């Protein structure tokens, strides 16, 4: 359950709960009273199977990437998790228990790779393609690893922190007499 009905009076906490909370053997932190599970990349798929079948998280709601290049020392991680540049964040929803769980994993800057969750939840199809397109994270075993939002021949991964926004400078000029010729 989220505490977003307006009852959240305490500021967010970044570290673990009072005595290190765990789920399935992995550390859990709390952020805005929401549970966040931190899973290493090697245990990714196995943990997801357990979360789906044992913990009854029937639905994958969201999967996104995050690039921590400019904010490496984030405090939202438990002490024993080694921060890397990229993270993949997954939101799970249990309809039967009316519960949400966020799961995060760390991926190295050099070759961020993660096994695909397509066989666990089919929703991962489009969501992983978006993370791959915008961050350059490779999902092994994904049935269709092509770009989804950018044109197929686009170079670069736009949501990375070292990819510029692409803002063009706006210049104000005096109005010209007559129509400008071409552009």
């Amino acid at each position, binding site marked *: 359950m989220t505490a977003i009905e*307006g009852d959240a009076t305490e500021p967010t906490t970044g570290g673990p709960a009072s005595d290190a909370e765990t789920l399935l053997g992995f550390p859990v932190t709390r952020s805005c009273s929401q549970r966040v599970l931190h899973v290493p990349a090697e245990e990714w798929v196995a943990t997801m199977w357990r979360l789906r079948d044992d913990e009854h998280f029937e639905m994958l709601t*969201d999967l996104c990437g995050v690039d921590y290049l400019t904010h490496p020392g984030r405090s939202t991680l438990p002490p024993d998790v080694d921060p890397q540049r990229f993270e993949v964040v997954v939101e799970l929803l249990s309809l039967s228990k009316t519960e949400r769980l966020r799961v995060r994993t760390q991926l190295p800057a050099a070759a961020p790779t993660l096994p695909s969750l397509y*066989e666990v939840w089919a929703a991962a199809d489009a969501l992983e393609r978006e993370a791959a397109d915008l961050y350059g994270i490779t999902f092994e075993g994904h049935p269709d690893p092509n770009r989804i939002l950018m044109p197929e021949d686009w170079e670069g991964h736009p949501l990375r922190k070292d990819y510029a926004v692409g803002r063009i400078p706006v210049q104000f000029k005096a109005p010209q007499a007559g129509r400008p010729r071409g552009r």
Partner: protein
Amino acid sequence: MTLDHATAATTGGPADDSFELGELPAPPRGVKSTELLRHPESVLRLSEEEAQAPADPDDPSDDETTIMNMGPQHPSTHGVLRLILELEGETVVRTKSVIGYLHTGMEKTGEELSYLQGPTNVTRMDYASPFSNELVFSMATEALLGIEVPERAVWIRMLMAELNRMSSHLLFLATNGMDLGAVSMMLYGWREREHVLRFFERVTGLRMNHNYIRPGGVAADLPPGWRDEVLALLETLPPRLDEYDVLMTGQPIWRQRTQGVGVIGAAEAMTLGATGPVLRSTGIPWDLRKTMPYLRYDELDFDVVVGTYGDTFDRYAIRLNEIRESIGMVHQIMDRIPAGDYRIQDKKVTPPPRGRIDESMEALIHHFKIFTEGFKVPEGEVYVAIESPRGELGCYIVSDGSPRPFRMHIRAPSFVNLGCLPHMMRGGLIADGVAIISSVDPIMGEVDR
């Protein structure tokens, strides 16, 4: 499901206790998602080059089916969605949906804008229900700030959100009608929508993309005389909705074109991550306003409208009846909305009233800081989800303590619901495909962001 009136089976009640989710088609242990889908091969996987390559005349299997392109500019009014269809005659075998034609880099832009400017950005994602986007972003920001919005602001937000649901579903009825040939429905739907948009213009100043729901509350209080306007609106709608029932629901042509078309199963919908009317049409009464209430939805009395067959007709009937439910909810909100502040009185978050700027130096400095630099949000991460007219709309914000979000990601319901398209379209005709796309009601602004 009763066929003589558009009410599908309904469940639900005021408080959580009496509401039952019922039996859920949970996936059996170890069963892969592809086994839960009836036809996992109905998703066409084709790159641009392969799609453009001409058929090989010497390969008999290549000759059997045609690859046809539909969109991104096509008359179905759902924006820039492109579908590559593999057809056998006129029957759709496999589908690939190509998106990205409206990719605006909004998540990247969101990292450059302050939290006060954030709603202007996100409101343009799902442009048919802009209040939903603003609401989820503001709620996420408030969760990170750890502040509580005043009571009146909460009820105003609910009022606008429900009116927005009505206008979005009216847009769906209009476009759905037109796609299926009932062109007069297009004009009727827009006629009703204009009433709602006129009210929005009175309150927020804009017909669309309002930037009204902001972190801390809402931008301005409701204008005097708003009750009469809303009541007038709520009185005109029900007889018109009955007209649409007669025009469409009871009509044999409509029935034939929508019943049994675009069927999706409950287990399929769950593994594909579908939410909103798509999921509810399969019989699962999952509505976040009822199951994981936010704002003050737990104090309102309304039903969750649910379908049975998971087809296009069910999705249409669900949305039509959700308008009716929203009408009831707006009546209740109007009765119970309290007096009070329309935004939180926290000086660090809310800009001071304009008159104060001339009197107080402190007010001037706060105004300046809030509008140029923005207010700082403590470090953390949060995911907030609401029930938008299309499904679960979520906002994931990572904050690094600065006045700009470090990462802002919107979980768009249409983006995930589009994954259901190939499975719904398999075995149908192209004309059915138009009906199916329309029944999923995607808004490409939030699909592509």
